[in-house]
């Protein structure tokens, strides 16, 4: 009778421990970069740039960490993702921390639930032509700004682009700040379509390029389009299969050793128990 009450007590104590923690698990928030980054943050170098996915298979597999074979996402090639920092493993491979928080997955792509960051080898990413590349390429064509937009009256909102022809909006300006304070514009650049552009270095947190001849056209397109870097781009392919834990650990390579060790322990123990304990309980010689 006493043992039955004891068993019941243990059962209820265990239930009270399990259910609150299940609720806690559902409410738990995944911290940026996780355990790996907390242990290795000093070895990480900040990058804070967007890159294009460019895996040889046609997609990029993102892992939980460089030391884990656990897949957390599979993303098709050609997608812009934000890389926060990079880390070098012992084999000299460079790994990038991929921001998955705002990633919008398409059909065929997978992102593990409640995962906001992951890691992937940087060889799977291509550089994106950015404002710095545009500036380096066309710096010689910049002329002095002569007040072309100083008297402009905003009708809807001025559009601020990453660079001329980028087709990527940085921000919009619906009205001038601080009692009609006009931004300080720098340079005047005329592109191959004859459109004139000017640059805002800083205006209440905003910066980028404004098309002088068509400052509010959100459908603005140029004949030359966004810039491209000279690099090999692999074709797009739909990721295959579900997310899994790969046996081939990308950075560490000791997963197989752990598998063998566990198998050996199980085998030895299975043999050892009958040897040590021999006869069945209750038998007396």
């Amino acid at each position, binding site marked *: 009778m006493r*043992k039955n009450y*004891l*068993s019941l007590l*243990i*059962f209820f*104590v*265990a*239930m009270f*421990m*399990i259910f*609150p*923690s*299940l609720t806690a*698990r559902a409410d738990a928030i995944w911290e940026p970069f996780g*355990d*790996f980054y907390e242990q290795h943050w000093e070895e990480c170098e900040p990058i804070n740039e967007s890159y294009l996915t460019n895996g040889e298979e046609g997609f990029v597999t993102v892992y939980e*960490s460089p*030391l*884990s074979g*656990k897949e957390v996402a599979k993303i098709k090639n050609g997608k812009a993702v934000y890389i926060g920092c990079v880390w070098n493993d012992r084999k000299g491979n460079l790994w990038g921390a991929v921001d998955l928080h705002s990633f919008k997955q398409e059909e065929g792509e997978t992102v*593990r639930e409640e995962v906001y960051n992951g890691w992937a080898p940087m060889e799977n990413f291509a550089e994106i032509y950015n404002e710095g590349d545009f500036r380096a390429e066309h710096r010689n064509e910049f002329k002095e700004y002569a007040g072309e937009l100083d008297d402009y009256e905003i009708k809807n909102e001025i559009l601020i682009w990453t660079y001329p022809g980028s087709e990527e909006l940085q921000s919009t300006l619906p009205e001038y700040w601080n009692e009609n304070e006009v931004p300080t514009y720098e340079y005047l650049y005329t592109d191959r379509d004859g459109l004139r552009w000017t640059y805002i270095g800083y205006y209440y947190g905003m910066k980028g390029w404004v098309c002088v001849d068509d400052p509010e056209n959100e459908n603005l397109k140029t004949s030359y389009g966004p810039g491209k870097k000279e690099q090999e781009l692999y074709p797009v392919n739909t990721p295959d299969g579900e*997310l*899994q*834990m790969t*046996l081939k650990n990308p950075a*560490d390579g*000791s*997963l197989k*050793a*752990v*598998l063998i*060790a*566990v198998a050996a*322990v*199980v085998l030895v*123990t*299975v043999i*050892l*128990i*009958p040897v*040590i*304990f021999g006869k*069945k*309980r209750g038998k007396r010689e």
Partner: protein
Amino acid sequence: MNELFLKLVISLLLTLVTEFPVAFLFQAKGKDLLLVFLVNILTNPAVVLVSTLTGDRVSLQMILEGMAILAEGFYYNKYSTYMRKGFLCSFCCNLVSYGVGLLL
């Protein structure tokens, strides 16, 4: 050191720490304690490894824990000297250790 290996070691230590007291309550003593130790060495690393390799899904964990309970209960019934109700002991031990693991 490999993260997975660390996870296995910590999980096993935690399991032993939580299951021994429960086994005591089921009259385990003497050589029975060695049996509890060996049985957990047999089941715990394998369960944790398979669970980790398959993404730590709760549904699969339940199945794996069920198999561990059956295996441990079998060994307790077959080889223990003082312990009674091997399957019930195994069930309670694993329930408590799983609960503690979730909390942590």
